[in-house]
């Protein structure tokens, strides 16, 4: 599997965080991660998450483009960044 550039991973991480921490089935067990812990994740990633707008600074010029379908985590790329990396 190809290694992605760090900033590219960060943009995708942003989208992962939105989903994995805020969405998905909630089957809260009787021992669960506390909300405070989740806040700490965001704090730990504050460089990335100062706001979602940070994503804009991480991206290169251009826009989404057509690419072969991909399914794996490491291959999942924010397309313009990927193009910038490949150029």
């Amino acid at each position: 599997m190809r290694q992605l550039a760090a900033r590219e991973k960060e943009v995708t991480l942003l989208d992962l965080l939105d989903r994995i921490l805020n969405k998905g089935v909630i089957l809260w067990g009787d021992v669960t991660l506390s909300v405070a812990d989740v806040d700490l994740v965001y704090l730990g990633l504050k460089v990335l998450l100062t706001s979602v707008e940070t994503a804009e600074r991480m991206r290169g010029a251009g826009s989404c483009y057509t690419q072969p379908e991909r399914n794996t985590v490491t291959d999942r790329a924010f397309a313009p960044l990927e193009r910038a990396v490949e150029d």
Partner: protein
Amino acid sequence: MPAVYLYAIADRPKAPLPSSRGLQGASLSSLACGDLAAVFSPLTATDVQATESALWLHEEVVEALMAERAVLPVRFGSVFSNEAAVRAELMARYTALVAALDRVRGRVELGLRVLWDDDQEAIRKKWEITDHAQCSSRAPRALSPGDGRSYLMTRLEEERRAQARRQRAEALAAEIHTPLTRLAVASARQVLITPRLLLTGAYLLEHDRVAAFRREVEMLSAAHSVLRFLCTGPWPPYSFADV
């Protein structure tokens, strides 16, 4: 029995599990409940740290499952004191979980963010035209301390601008979101979560529509050159797994 960390609810309880490891290096297991399976791994320590690598590990388990079966990704951090507690939860919500799995089977989620910039020349010009049209009859008024009327006028003007901005955002978001919904079986959108995040969209797509969706995003991006498009996925159906 040890505490368990839950990754996903899947169909086909007898299907083989991915060989990848779960949190704390533990092997994956599953427990069956009718047509459902809960995929988990045992925890030695229950204080699951939400680190970046742990988040990706959770995601990788869900994606490996999704390659073979319909899955409902479980929110990160769901820990149960034992397997029996998981089974009880599955039984309590069995019908809703089976229905949710039916909704997402064979489908993936794509994410889209569209950013705009108020300073972009094209957008600003449009606003100036509007401003001039609406302000021309209003005489400029000097602001002096304690001038309640000036204060009020300023506030009204700010409010009017904010409203115009909101309307413009809604219109632009609809221009982008509507054609994408035609390719999706379900969708969700939010407008202006932050001042510069015009649109945040999630789209549930049949597997074979992903390429067409990306092409549509590319066309929309070309048609809106002042906006920035960020498209990610395919994801497990996080945004469509509400039970």
